């Protein structure tokens, strides 16, 4: 039996201790917002927060997070400050229309949340260092950058599409 707190709720998990947190969240607790992408901590789709620290749940055995407080994408809104209950990062994600397929976005959002909790006004280099760990095959990176800047209250620059070319 392994005790951990997920999104503020305490759970006693009856899974083998070497079970990666990812599969315990998805298959045992039914929290499918955390995604499987690679299984070896290369893509960041499975990112969750341990306290304020982003961790790769696909390589973190549940025995390694015993007693810890974990936040998944489903729990992020519960702690959000906006009137909608959303975290400012989630709001910025909506405003910038970031998702394409959407599959990697939980990992992107939680990585950005952790970044901004550590550096509320991140430099370009800090943003780059944090976000480079999370893959997006659809190519949403330009908007990920804009959304992080927006959530931090920093200028986002111009839209990528110029005015139309008249024919």
């Amino acid at each position: 039996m392994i005790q951990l707190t997920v999104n503020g709720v305490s759970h006693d998990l009856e899974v083998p201790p070497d079970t990666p947190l990812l599969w315990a969240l998805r298959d045992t607790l039914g929290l499918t917002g955390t995604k499987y992408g690679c299984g070896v901590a290369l893509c960041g789709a499975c990112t969750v927060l341990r306290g304020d620290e982003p961790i790769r749940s696909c390589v973190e055995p549940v025995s390694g997070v015993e007693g810890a407080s974990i936040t998944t994408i489903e729990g992020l809104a519960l702690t959000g400050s906006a009137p909608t209950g959303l975290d400012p990062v989630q709001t910025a994600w909506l405003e910038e229309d970031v998702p394409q397929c959407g599959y990697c976005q939980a990992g992107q959002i939680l990585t950005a949340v952790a970044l901004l909790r550590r550096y509320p006004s991140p430099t370009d280099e800090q943003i780059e260092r944090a976000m480079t760990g999370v893959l997006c095959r659809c190519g949403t990176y330009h908007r990920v950058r804009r959304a992080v800047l927006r959530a931090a209250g920093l200028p986002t620059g111009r839209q990528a599409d110029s005015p139309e070319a008249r024919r």
Partner: protein
Amino acid sequence: MSARDAGERVLTRRDFVKVGTAAGGGLLVAVTVPTASTSLAKAVPGAEPTVINVFIEIALDGSVTITAKNPEIGQGSKTALPLVVAEELDVEWSRVRVRQADLDERSYGAQFAGGSWGLRSSWDSLRIAGASARALLVAAAAGRWGVDAAECTTEAGSVAHPATGRRLGYGELAAEAARLPMPRDVEPKRPSEYRLLGSRVPGVDNPAIVRGSQRFGLDVRVEGMLYAVVSRPPTYGATVVDYDPERALAVPGVEAVRRIEGRPNPTHMVDGVAVLANSTWAALNGREALDVEWSPGPRGAESTQDLRARFAEVIEQPGRTILRDDGDVATAEAVAAQVIEADYEVPFLAHAPMEPQNCTAHVREDGCDIWAPTQSPGTVQQLAAAITGLPRGSIAVHMQRVGGGFGRRLLGDYAAEAVYLSDAVGAPVQVLWTRDDDLRHGYYRPAGYHRLRASLDRDGRPTGWLHRLVSTSRYEFRNDPAGPAASEMYADDFPAGCIPDVRYEYSSVPTSIPTGAWRATLHSGNAFAVQSFVDELAHAAGRDPVESRLEMLGEPRELPYGDHGGPLFDTGRMAHVIRVAAERGEWGSPVGEGRGRGFAAHFTFGTYAAEVAEITVSPDGELRVDRIVAVLDCGIVVNRSSAEAQVQGGVLQGLDAALHSEIVIEDGLASPRNFDGYPLLRFNQVPDVEAVFVESTVPPYGLGEPPLPPVAPAVANAIFAATGRRIRRLPIRRRIPSTSP
């Protein structure tokens, strides 16, 4: 402009419009329209020339529900298609709810995501549906007020009679409208009247995505479901000789081990042994413990190295299929002032969507439910029927939002496995492909070897053009009757019709290495060869690459185009995007030491694309791509936000392919096991991407694929401009070799 404008035609198709009362008492409008163009439909696998249906429901409270019939794979179709209906209906977008349809091709016609085809194929029916519903609501209001319908206007979900200042909401009119006959003439708006189309509208699933409540295929949970992973062949085409389930069954949580018997067509399902368990982790551990004995595949230990050598032999022979033979290339060469030849190579590419292949199925005596993240639910249903013997009508395919498609999910093999295993164990089964499975057992973009030879006249103008391609045909791989050349090389591609003597030849090299459709199909590789070669010719003749492209295109005119995005190729629209790209990309202005600009343009899926790449090569050969300007003429831009996203995404995937991506085959199997062996573009490697859309009133064509093909040649041409090194083989990689290959 000779292409027809969107608002030109008055549509009087009342026969196709069905009106009824919705369950809650509101208005239900269904529109059935035969697809106009079969030549386009046939260019996409699985697409039948058939009917397309749109369903709109207007409730008594004025809310509107629009059915989205196609799979959503990140291309934005679930938002863009209903947006067209909302525009014609004149309803506030915030009042619209979009409902994802299940598979029901009898009602909806072909339902798939492929060929950049969703908007184009549904454009007319979406407009008719919206305009018809609007006409009914106007008729209901006019009737109630005793005025002429022509005196009424609509705006933001209500009908108004300006002369008397009266106004009624759609909800108040819906029940009455449902009992009215369809008005005779329904005219969709003119593009100048659009309020929603062309604006930036966020994806309808975004709120669920950012909360983590959006369900993807792998998130499906069914009572009593088993999790399965499959031990897959060590070489392509290998079959199971024997297996010992004991060690796998000893893993706690493992409940069954089952052999999967492959189908004759290797794109339907291949041999494997599945481990089924009560959790994904137990299934993965069970697979580790499993012992399987395999036969060698029919071609044994194939490798990309051997294949390249074989390509180099076959390219010396005339092609087995002659796709085009205008004039006489041999004579053109004989009289030419100069003949220039170059070979180009492109590798196998994996799709690598972030959501690996998976599917959940529950087969019962009387039917079957399938929850499939697929681009082609009809294919899934067909395979399930073949496996289970159940009638297609009893097989429900519930389309799940798809975590990336890129062509991989046009096939249904992953779903066939789930169906097969559920049938075998009598319980619901979810099959998961690990990243290793997904990368090593993909259906890759075919590898190819191009030879191009051009005759130039005394002024350096191309007069003759030979293009010979040797590749591993994906149609041959699946024994498709269309023949090996189909969708490998396109008879009407540029410069066909622009040069008097043109010959396109194709040969395939048979292989067991699996191949399939990949974003932009073979245009991804062919444009690299052709657009690099155009650049080479321009430099050989001492001409400007943009000027020489414009000269090759010649006068604005329409040429027949028989493949994706036909039936016409308009040289004038292509010339226009080239000119705009040159202007926006600051073509011809100084760019600085160690830097270069490259140009490329390509037409596919009905959309015209021209791109300028700006790069830097450091003194020690390190390549950095700084900026890509992409100019597109896709007709009307429906949703500016997703259109821009498709350009950014298409360009980045094209850049990935240009710079890093290559599936290497060794000992009969792809070697990369994960993203360390198949690196994808990351956040810190992304150049500025500028998307420019040409203003247009022509009906919209797709954007999922067209931005991709020009990227690799634009970057390669920029490297030449900066360094004098010519890139003739992809991927380029990060370091530019000190001598040309």
